[in-house]
């Protein structure tokens, strides 16, 4: 009924989808699983029309289709229930359900609210939600909102010809056990109206609801598992089980760190939101890796060390001292360097040259009385361009025009050239190609040799295991498990997944 054949998608430096074949039959619930960065979200975006594939065919009801926008996909009967709910909270339930499709209730430009309410009740009945359609959406529980969202997508049934395909992106992440059961019951019943694609990192849920499960890894579908033919363990091994090359992560260069020298100490730190009671010490030469699901609080912990988030309780000490104030400026001044996940937004300033980017965090070292010493800045940049073999035409090149790997090297040299010896790396290899990743791993080892302490949020489990001395698993804002990765004591990806999911 819905079929993808040999779908290809490339982004600069990344081969995001590799000849993906994907099929949904009428009334089927198809599971889609994979690690972060495996290509799930790209595939979903192709399905609901946010990305056009570079190559390959999409067939819907036997006809070849091509969507330039989510609206085009909607018109063909492909709807999406977003993870971050897309309802507008200050509108009523019925206004949300018919957002953009009010014309059917309008007479001479005025909306017939009673007709809309009746129609909304019909839609809500499909998802077994008995609420007043005129209620403000903000007064609903999360589970109810999820169902309203589903009802909204189900209006497609009346609006378009042909069968429906509905994408559910992590629909259970904010629901309780009972609510999940309720939702699953409704979805199973709705399979007579539509087919579903179910995306979740909760393996037990995927197994319990899906008729078939697509397992993705590195942009390709590595296996399709029929219902009842696989265990959670099997699927998890398929998701993460690449033969890991020891040399890839420079593991031979992982040396014991200096236990006597504490660089950062967190003591029962709680943050606004869900992060509670985080305590750890980062030592000189140590790579401490925070592992957890998206939204588990890893990024918040890093940002708290960098002074971007003020803890609600607990203390953050840098070199055994509290910073005079909680700010990135104070943290940077104390030798903390931050390599953010969003490289192009927070890492580099595109439109500024390589040398301007490198000295951005250390202008006081390159100025006297507020006047910059351009010659010294440029000399420093040339020096580091050489040291890290950054591919740029010169230190004057616009940083925004460099490749991702070289941009990342600029960000790293910004901090290292300023003498930062506490490095916070948030997904430092995200979106980089293999060679550039290896360069980053090499730099991680170099930094450890220099006595730098590193807090890392890795892109994959292998990366975490390959690089870290210490792994802390974070789930729902709390520390669940700590691993010391000595010789023979490193956890397997499966163990990590087991503690975080």
């Amino acid at each position, binding site marked *: 009924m819905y079929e993808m054949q040999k779908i290809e998608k490339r982004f600069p430096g990344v081969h995001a989808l590799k000849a993906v074949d994907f099929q949904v039959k009428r009334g089927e619930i198809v599971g889609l699983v994979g690690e972060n960065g495996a290509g799930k979200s790209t595939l979903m975006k192709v399905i609901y029309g946010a990305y056009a594939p570079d190559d390959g065919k999409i067939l819907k009801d036997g006809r070849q289709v091509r969507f330039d926008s989510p609206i085009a996909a909607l018109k063909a009967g492909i709807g999406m229930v977003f993870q971050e709910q897309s309802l507008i909270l200050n509108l009523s339930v019925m206004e949300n359900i018919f957002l953009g499709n009010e014309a059917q209730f309008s007479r001479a430009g005025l909306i017939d609210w009673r007709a809309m309410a009746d129609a909304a009740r019909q839609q809500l009945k499909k998802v077994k939600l008995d609420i007043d359609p005129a209620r403000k959406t903000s007064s609903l529980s999360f589970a109810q909102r999820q169902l309203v969202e589903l009802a909204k997508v189900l209006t497609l049934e009346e609006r378009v010809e042909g069968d429906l395909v509905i994408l559910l992106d992590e629909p259970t992440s904010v629901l309780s056990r009972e609510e999940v059961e309720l939702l699953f019951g409704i979805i199973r019943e709705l399979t007579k109206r539509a087919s579903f694609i179910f995306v979740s990192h909760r393996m037990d849920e995927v197994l319990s609801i899906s008729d078939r499960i697509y397992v993705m890894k590195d942009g390709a579908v590595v296996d399709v598992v029929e219902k009842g033919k696989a265990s959670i363990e099997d699927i998890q091994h398929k998701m993460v089980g690449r033969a890991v090359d020891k040399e890839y992560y420079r593991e031979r260069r992982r040396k014991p760190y200096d236990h006597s020298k504490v660089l950062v100490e967190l003591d029962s730190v709680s943050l606004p939101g869900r992060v509670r009671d985080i305590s750890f010490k980062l030592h000189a030469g140590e790579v401490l890796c925070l592992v957890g699901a998206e939204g588990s609080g890893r990024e918040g912990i890093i940002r708290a060390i960098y002074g971007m988030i003020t803890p609600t309780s607990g203390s953050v000490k840098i070199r055994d001292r509290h910073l005079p104030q909680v700010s990135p400026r104070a943290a940077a001044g104390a030798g903390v360097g931050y390599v953010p996940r*969003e490289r192009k*937004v927070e*890492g580099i300033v*595109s439109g500024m040259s390589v040398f301007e980017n490198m000295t951005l965090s250390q*202008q006081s070292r390159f100025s006297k009385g507020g*006047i910059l010493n351009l010659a010294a800045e440029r000399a420093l940049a040339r020096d580091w361009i050489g040291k890290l073999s950054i591919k740029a035409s010169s230190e004057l090149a616009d940083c925004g025009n460099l490749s991702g790997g070289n941009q990342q090297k600029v960000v790293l040299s910004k901090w290292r050239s300023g003498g930062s010896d506490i490095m916070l790396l948030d997904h430092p290899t995200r979106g980089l190609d293999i060679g550039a990743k290896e360069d980053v791993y090499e730099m991680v080892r170099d930094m450890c040799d220099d006595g730098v302490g590193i807090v890392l949020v890795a892109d994959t489990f292998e990366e975490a295991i390959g690089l870290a001395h210490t792994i802390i698993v974070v789930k729902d804002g709390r520390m669940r498990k700590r691993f010391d990765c000595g010789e023979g004591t490193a956890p397997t990806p499966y163990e990590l997944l087991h503690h975080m999911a």
Partner: protein
Amino acid sequence: MNLERLKPHLPWITLALLVVIVSLIDPNFLNPASMLSLAADIVPLFIMALGITFAIYIGGIDLSAQSMANMVTVVATVLLTSMGAWVAVFCVLLGGLFGAFSGFVTTRFYVPSFISTLAVGGVAFSVAQWLSGQRSVSMNAAERDALFGWMISKTAGVPHELMIAAVLLLVCWFIERRTVVGRNLKAIGAGELAAVASGISVARYKTIAFALSGALAALAGLLFAVKLSGGAPSVANGFLLPAIVAVLVGGTPLTGGVGGVVNTMIGTLIVAVIRASMLYLEINATQQQMFFGLILIAAIALTIDRAKLKIVK
């Protein structure tokens, strides 16, 4: 050569084309004396535009510049006798203080700069009305000539106003290109989040940008007062629109991060030539703002970096 590559060069190409067109219509336009006086006439506008450049460079806007200049014409006139030459220093500090206050409101309370500067401009305008009693006030001619006469005299046929403009341009250019302040303003305009993540105190530098803008608007007002030998709460009216046009057609987009004060000089010259051509074409002075309004819209549409704007309200 594609359009993106051409874009940085558009301002001076536009200027050159305009000069050619106008001089074809009226060959007298190229007469050096008339060109000098044309340029001198635009100096107060240029100084105001220089200031606004800093606000726009960081991705903000300063709508208070005109009211600030109005206020300073009155303040300078009223205080000239009692303060003497120090009145100049006082006025510039006052402008800087008002600007810094706009910056404080913007950064501390997260009020968009177009509203904070509009409000502070309202305060400045009201101060001018109150101090002047809503009348024109005049300077003592002898005092003015003794203290500030040099501003509007000439040396070898070159108006001193042009030299003032040149010195200010040089100072502003130095701030923009050679100082920590300028570097940080650029970083904020081009990538504010990266500036934050690099440990730059963004609030402080934004406040400095608005303070610079206010101080330069005050200087523009001072020059006005000296030229007119007096002040009134409305003398600078009609300057805000052309000043913003000058910044934008010069090539500093509303989204900030690129362009700068040299661009604003080119933009101001474009505005000057357009004004002059309107005179030749006998377009009534009252109609000029219509054109500047339309040019402003065209300039914004041409220069704005849409990649930086997700939502416009």
